[in-house]
């Protein structure tokens, strides 16, 4: 089940272009910080961060080119964190009997 021929060369997207986008996103998030509406700003900044992260993950880390069961690892990890967050929210944020 192992071909010893070295890894067939995977597609290499234009990394520099992606870097440009990331820089743009960085500047954007810096500008967003000056928004009047705090909640909105936080939300947008968070969204930008997610975009940045997914760019790095899917292209720099090549997750885009990996089989589904590898993508599942990341999804599972994030799911576990979501569960943790939901489980702790009622006790840490809305302290019952605080």
């Amino acid at each position, binding site marked *: 089940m192992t071909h010893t*021929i070295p890894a067939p060369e995977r597609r290499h997207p234009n990394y520099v272009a992606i870097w440009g986008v990331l820089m743009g996103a960085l500047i954007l998030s810096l500008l967003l910080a000056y928004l009047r509406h705090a909640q909105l700003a936080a939300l947008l*900044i968070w969204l930008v961060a997610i975009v940045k992260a997914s760019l*790095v993950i899917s292209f720099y880390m090549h997750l885009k080119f990996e089989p589904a069961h590898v993508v599942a690892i990341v999804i599972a990890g994030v799911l576990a964190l979501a569960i943790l967050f939901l489980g702790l929210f009622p006790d840490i944020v809305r302290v019952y009997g605080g």
Partner: protein
Amino acid sequence: MSRAAAHAAATRRDDVIRSTGISTGRLAIWWFLGSEIVIFGGLIVCYVLFRLRHPEWGALARHTVTPAGAFNTLVLLTSSLFMVLAHAAVEHGDLKRASRHMLGTIALGGVFLGVKAFEYGHEMSMGFTPVSGLFWSFYYALTGLHALHVTGGLFAILAVRQMVARRSDTHRVELVGIYWHFVDVVWIFLFPLLYLSN
């Protein structure tokens, strides 16, 4: 090469694509990152929860040096670019260029740590130590853990660069790269959480 020897080789060397569509080395890195995601993520979740519990922390977050943080984001993203270019170079068989790019990554990683050290010094001088309030405890815990990962990554890249110089195990450039990008991703989240939100 006999199938047995191939199989034997496979258990020792990772530069083979398996029928599962991924080399064992890359698979291992991803599972390793799976564990890292829940370690860092767990800490971040705790911080976010307390952040929601203590709105007043917004004021404290102002004392972090946003420009420095932003600059460090730039530095780390760029170092990632160099890293992935090094990987591409390896796959095009240009090891010289690969190790040049890796040198860039290492240099930028060093810059990142330098800036971080400066920030720590600055904040301490303003009296914000790890024990002056929960926000700062979290700030130092998160950035400190991250800085440790950066340092570890730097050493790993140095080691791999030696291998590249020896033209051996060049596939590890990609592996160490994936790890480095992960450290980058963590910072992408830490930056808004600790510097921007107020």
